[in-house]
């Protein structure tokens, strides 16, 4: 019985690998489930199997939120660079860096949430980073506002498997101050909504 389940997983894991390889782009876990006719749980389990299988190979799974992509391990940068151009190269300005860092640790964030942390109007810098393909608008809006997060291209340029590998990720992501600031904003927005409802 156990044997069979594990066999099934290997099957799904191979399906996933062939999809990620042939598609050559990020896929959501949900879409992978549809394509493999498997549950989200099975896909996640298969991804763990895959990670073990890829252990000794120069490839790895890179995740961002619910999306996953197959990429080369950062140790092979020198050799791969000979055949593929690194489109992301170039310096980051301080405001860019600051915005990317906040979104990497705390994203997806709405623009007001980001501005609350930066203390400064950020629509131009967001637009700039979206033009460079370092930030993208996510599908899930919050409080009627679009949310923003860093892209796979950014994660790739940092050579990370996922943003959780950033130093002090847990503490900065879940830091009480961030949580406080955002909670207060949410309460404010809710209060405002209520007033508007009342006035209608």
């Amino acid at each position: 019985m156990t044997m069979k389940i594990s066999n099934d997983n290997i099957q799904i894991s191979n399906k996933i690998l062939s999809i990620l390889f042939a598609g050559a782009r990020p896929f959501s876990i949900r879409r992978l489930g549809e394509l493999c006719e498997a549950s989200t749980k099975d896909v996640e389990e298969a991804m763990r199997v895959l990670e073990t299988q890829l252990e000794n190979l120069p490839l790895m799974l890179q995740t961002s939120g619910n999306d996953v992509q197959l990429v080369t391990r950062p140790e092979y940068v020198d050799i791969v660079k000979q055949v593929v151009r690194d489109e992301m190269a170039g310096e980051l300005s301080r405001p860019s860096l600051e915005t990317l860092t906040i979104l990497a640790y705390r994203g997806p964030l709405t623009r007001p949430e980001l501005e609350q942390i930066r203390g400064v109007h950020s629509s131009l810098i967001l637009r700039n980073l979206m033009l460079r393909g370092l930030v993208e608008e996510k599908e899930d809006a919050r409080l009627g506002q679009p949310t923003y997060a860093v892209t796979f291209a950014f994660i790739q340029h940092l050579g990370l498997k996922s943003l959780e590998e950033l130093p002090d990720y847990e503490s900065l992501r879940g830091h009480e101050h961030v949580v406080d600031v955002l909670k207060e904003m949410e309460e404010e927005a809710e209060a405002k909504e209520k007033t508007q409802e009342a006035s209608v």
Partner: protein
Amino acid sequence: MLGLFFVSRGAILPPVPITFQTAQFEGPLDLLLQLVEKEELEISEVSLAIVADQFVQYVKEGQGKIAPEELADFLVIAAKLVYMKSKLLLPSLVDDALEEGPDLATQLRLYQQFVAASRTVNGMWESDQVSFPRERRTVRQLEPSFVPPRDLTTTAMRELMQAVITRLTPIIKLPQAAMQRVMTIQDKIASLAQKLRTHASFRFSSVLRQAKDKGERVVSFLALLELVKQRVVKVAQTDLFDDIDVAAHELDRLADLQLEFV
């Protein structure tokens, strides 16, 4: 300087000479952080009050260097700082608008952490550890095909194009919009002055009540401080925790009032 008025009423804060030479700063919190770090102070309500004057001075001198769309953000922080400093001297002064949200010290500490983290991220960005996805070249080798979208009509295309143009509007209009935000301070001063002409004196809370939002209340407060500083008005408080009475002082000065912030 905005803060001087309060200092002259009996400074409990050590005066800090403005010796810090113009450095590059990216936003109001960045400037504030640099000022606090320059004084080798921990971030606290008191340390922020100490650098308040320097901050205001910088904003005044650096106006040309501050992007117009950011100026309003500098003003909001300036108002918060002046308010914090005023409160240390005048404990009964409470303004809900400026009390709202996280306090400035908390906000700045958080910002400081992200600035530190961004240096680490920059190190990672510049180090040569990059991973690559598979190039999407192979797909191109497939037979060239023609796969048009099924339901796209020219009417739908017109709507899509209009939506794109609408989305561009705030990008084009942003600097103007920001300037308008700054301009409202001037409007506010004008309306306070008008009120003084017709009422001789009034309570500041009545002004705050009329404000539509937090931003406008901040602006009202800033406008009042400016009028006090320019000696156009006098403010008085009969008792601790009482409302602030605003009365005309030298209203005729209003005519040649030079607004240093606008």
